C-alpha cells in the first residue's frame, strides 16, 4: 500500500437547493486501497460517491484523481476523466437493447476509440475475470441479478480505470447472489485496484477493507481500520449505528 493518494476529496460540499447534503467532506484513498463507506441512509454516502465522477456536480471543494482536479476542465476533459473512474451502480444499469458483449464494448469503441477486435478481446478477458465468459452472447434480461452486476463490473473494468466506485452494489440482489459479486470485488482488491465502496455488507468490510469511513449528516464522523471502527467505535453516533445494523 503506497501513500500516494489515488483519490483525494477535499472540503467537498453539495447542496440541493436549501438542503445541505454534504458538508466539508475530506477523504484520501491511497493507491491499491479499499476504503469502505458506511452510514445511515440519507447520510450522503451515495451523493459523495456520485460526486467523484461528477454524476452530481459538487457545490464546493475539490476532487483529485491521481493528482488531477476533476472539478475543473472542459466537457471533453470530463469524459476523459470518467474513463479513469469506473462506477458500479446499485441497479446494474445494463443496456437492455444490447447483448452482454456489446454492453462491454460500447464505451470502449465510442469513447476510447478501440477497434472492434481489441474491444471484444478486452471484453472477453474481463468477462473471464468475473466468471461469465460463457454469457457473452446473452441478453441482460436473461441473467440473474448477480450475473448482471458482474457484467456491470466487467463493463467498468474494460476501460482500465484507475479507481472503481461501488454504489451499494449488492443491495438490489437476493441474499444467495451477493456472495458471487463480493468475491469478484475481493479478487479486484487482491489485484491492487483502488476502490471506494458504499455498502451495507459489514462482514465484507471487516474482511476486505483497508479502512472504514463512517458518515452521518453529510460529514465524516469517524475513520479508521475495520478493527478500530467496528471493534471500538469512538463516537456515540457510530456506536448507535453499528448496534442497529449488526
Amino acid at each position, binding site marked *: 500500500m503506497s501513500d500516494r493518494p489515488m483519490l483525494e476529496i477535499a472540503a467537498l460540499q453539495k447542496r440541493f437547493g436549501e438542503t445541505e447534503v454534504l458538508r466539508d467532506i475530506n477523504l484520501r484513498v491511497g493507491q491499491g486501497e479499499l476504503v469502505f463507506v458506511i452510514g445511515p441512509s440519507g447520510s450522503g454516502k451515495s451523493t459523495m460517491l456520485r460526486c467523484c*465522477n461528477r454524476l452530481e456536480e459538487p457545490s464546493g471543494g475539490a476532487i483529485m484523481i491521481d493528482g488531477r482536479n476533476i472539478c475543473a476542465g472542459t466537457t*471533453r476533459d470530463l469524459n476523459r476523466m470518467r474513463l479513469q473512474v469506473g462506477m458500479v451502480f446499485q441497479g446494474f444499469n445494463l443496456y437492455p*437493447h444490447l447483448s452482454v458483449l456489446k454492453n462491454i464494448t*460500447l464505451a470502449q469503441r465510442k469513447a476510447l476509440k478501440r477497434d472492434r477486435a481489441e474491444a471484444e478481446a478486452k471484453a472477453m478477458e474481463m468477462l473471464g475475470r468475473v466468471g461469465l465468459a460463457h454469457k457473452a452472447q446473452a441478453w441482460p434480461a436473461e441473467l440473474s441479478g448477480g450475473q448482471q452486476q458482474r457484467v456491470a463490473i466487467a463493463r467498468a473494468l474494460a*476501460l482500465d480505470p484507475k479507481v472503481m466506485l461501488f454504489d451499494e452494489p449488492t443491495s438490489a440482489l437476493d441474499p444467495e447472489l451477493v456472495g458471487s459479486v463480493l468475491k469478484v470485488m475481493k479478487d479486484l482488491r487482491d489485484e491492487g485496484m483502488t476502490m471506494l465502496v458504499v455498502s451495507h455488507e459489514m462482514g465484507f468490510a471487516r474482511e476486505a477493507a483497508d479502512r472504514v469511513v463512517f458518515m452521518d449528516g453529510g460529514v465524516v464522523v469517524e475513520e479508521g481500520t475495520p478493527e478500530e471502527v467496528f471493534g471500538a467505535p469512538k463516537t456515540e453516533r457510530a456506536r448507535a449505528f453499528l448496534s442497529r445494523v449488526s
Partner: protein
Amino acid sequence: MDRFLETFFNATVMARYLPDILHGVGVTVLLAVAIILAGVAAGLVLACLRTARLRWLNFLIICYADVGRALPPLVVILLFYFGLPNIGITLSGPMVLFVVLSATLAAFAEEIFWAGFTSLPRGQWEAGRATGLGSLQVLVWIALPQAVRLAVPPLVNRALAITKMTALGSVIGVSEILSAATTAQSFSGSASPLTLGALAYLAIFVPFVIFARWLESRFAWKKA
C-alpha cells in the same frame, strides 16, 4: 338486392372510372409516404433536441407539439390554402396537404419519442456518462435505440390515422382517391365509384392496420 348491387357495385361504371381511381391511389400513396418520412424525422429531431434541456428551446418545442396536437388539421389546411395567397404565398393543394399533415405528425411523433426518452430509467444515462461517453454518444447509442423501440407501436397507429387524412385533399382539389371518386360519382350518377374509392382505401390501409396489430401483440408478448 339487384338494385343495391346496381347502385353500389355497377361493374361497367367501375371499369370506366378505374383508371382515375388508380391515379388517385398513386397520389395518395406518394403523399402518405412523404408525410410519414418527413413527420417522423422531424418529430425525432425535435425530441432529441428536447433532451438537451435548453429552457427556451424546450418551451418552443412543447408549444409546437401542443398546438400541433390540439388543432384539427382541416382548419390548418383551409387556413393555409385560402389564407396564404392573400399575403402573396401560394402553395399548391398537394403541398399544403403535405406541409400540414407532416407538421401534425411531427407534433405527435415528438411527444411519442419524448415519452420513450422519459420512460428510460435515469440509470441508463448515468451508466453511459460514467463510462466516459459524451451526451451525444449516450443519446445515439443508448437512449435512442430504446426510445425508438418503445415508440414504434403508438407511432404506427398515429401515422396510420394521419395518413388517412390525405382524404382531406379532396376539399382543396388534390386529385387523390376520394376526390377522383366523388368526381366520378357526379359524372356517372352512380354510387359505384364511391365504393371503388372505399375499396382502394381499404386495400392501402388494411395491411397497415394488420401490421399495427401484429406489432402490438409482439410488443405485449415481450413484456410477459
